[in-house]
């Protein structure tokens, strides 16, 4: 291969190496596995035999693509070029709206109710500024997600909220418990429930306690000392 005049041999070799290595890796990360992506071809045939849900369960990740991903992910991680699959409202858009409510109790009897933002009531500017809060609330997950990793995140959020909401720096004002409740509304399937007007509000009538964080008694401190004002959560 002869390099064009505007580029040195070294630059030319480096550029071509990056192109040859990175293009397939980016493709492999972003695209759905081929058998999964084209499963809709099998749809009519499969639907005749079995129920839709059963067919969904049969979709397994492609083992070859998975193995290649395992081998190449160190390179992608280390170079900061990992992307993961490009799932934007795919394969199905969300069909739930959810909010988080936290009931915080302090040892002096004070109770605080914290709520995640009520998005439709906020101005455009506020929603723009709180975009990361939206991602965070989404990442915490809905009612169904109670994996140990998620519970650890809820626990740290409890610590954070207890610290933020604490007003009494004395040991008596230490947090006692934080209870998280997720409120969820399901957007009904229009093919089953009929088309509902957009203006109709979906009541968040499904609510469950996802976690209760109980704080141990704060350590006793000498009478002439107080706990730091920002502290509280152990």
């Amino acid at each position, binding site marked *: 291969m002869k390099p064009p005049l*505007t580029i040195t041999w070294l630059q030319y070799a480096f550029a071509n190496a990056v192109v040859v290595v990175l293009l397939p890796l980016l493709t492999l990360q972003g695209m759905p596995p081929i058998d999964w992506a084209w499963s809709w071809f099998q749809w009519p045939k499969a639907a005749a035999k079995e129920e839709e849900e059963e067919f969904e369960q049969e979709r397994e990740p492609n083992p070859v693509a998975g193995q290649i991903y395992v081998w190449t992910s160190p390179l992608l991680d280390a170079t*900061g070029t990992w992307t993961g699959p490009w*799932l934007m409202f795919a394969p*199905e858009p969300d069909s739930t709206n959810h909010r988080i409510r936290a009931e915080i109790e302090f040892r002096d009897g004070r109770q605080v109710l914290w709520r995640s933002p009520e*998005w439709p009531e906020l101005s455009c500017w506020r929603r723009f500024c709180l975009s990361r809060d939206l991602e965070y609330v989404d990442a915490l997950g809905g009612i169904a997600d109670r994996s140990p990793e998620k519970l650890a*995140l809820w626990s740290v959020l409890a610590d954070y909220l207890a610290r933020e909401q604490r007003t009494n720096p004395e040991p008596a004002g230490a947090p006692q418990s934080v209870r998280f409740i997720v409120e969820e509304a399901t957007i009904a399937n229009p*093919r089953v429930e009929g088309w509902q007007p957009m203006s109709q509000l*979906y009541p968040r009538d499904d609510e469950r306690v996802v976690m209760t964080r109980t704080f141990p008694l704060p350590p006793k401190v000498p009478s002439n000392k107080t706990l730091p004002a920002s502290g509280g959560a152990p």
Partner: protein
Amino acid sequence: MIAAWNRFFHQPADARIPAMIRIGLASLVLINLTAHYPNLEKWFGESGVLPQGLPHLPEGSWQWTLLDGVPQTPLALQVCFWIFVLQTVCLLLGLASRCSAVAVFIWIVSFQHRNQLILDGEDKVMRLIAFFLIFMPLAEIWSVDAWLLRRGKSQAEPYQSQASPWAQRMLQYFMVLVMFATGLWKFAGESWRDGTALYYVARIDDLFGRFWVPHYFFDTRWTVRAMTWSVLYVELVIPFLIWIPRARRFSLLVLLAFHLSNEWAMHLFLFHWVMLCGWLSFLKREDLDAVARVWRKLTGRSVPVRLS
């Protein structure tokens, strides 16, 4: 084949395109940082929602963050943040462009890896554009570097790049990949195929409803179907059409309309602006010359542009 490869990846192009991507990306990073600033400690600090004691990098991964190597204090976080801002401003101005691009990429990776709970698709696209930007010819035009290099000298072809645009080509491929991959993922979803997906999207109350949209469009079966399938059309067809010279401008206009209409209707932070920044890589000299001609007609002001 080799000649075609060299022509595609290495034939120098218009120097204004990498400059526009540099300025666009740096501006978006600065807006992103401005939005981060009030909650810096909350998202990245030790007293925030993801302290260091909690695993913040995927288990067994090779991901890294500079923020793990600095003292876990609010002051150290502030220092890192302001260095990031300073280097992004340098990138915006084109001052020590290549070094600034490397530094901005490292900071983007570091902050993104420190807290992945608050990331969205836009962050990944932003990170990858920053990666490709490192290898683009950044200092040729519209930069302090270019001004310093050419002080007192005149150039016959000020907009003609002298460098290989392979990184710009990579960015083109990446943008097409993002679009096509998400189209394919959608096509595997039943609600996208039966045309009801936008019924759900319009009722997700944390994302939808940025500015006023006629409810009729989202309450009526045929309009919802038409819009849902038009999304699939854009995501599955435009990635191919855009490579055809005669369809390129049409494709870019469709993409512009697609992103701006979504930006109007939905709260997706900077996603659509980041995507538009990436699509700039498909512009060509004749597009910029045409824009300059229109601008001159509208304002009566002359723009220094080569019209041939």
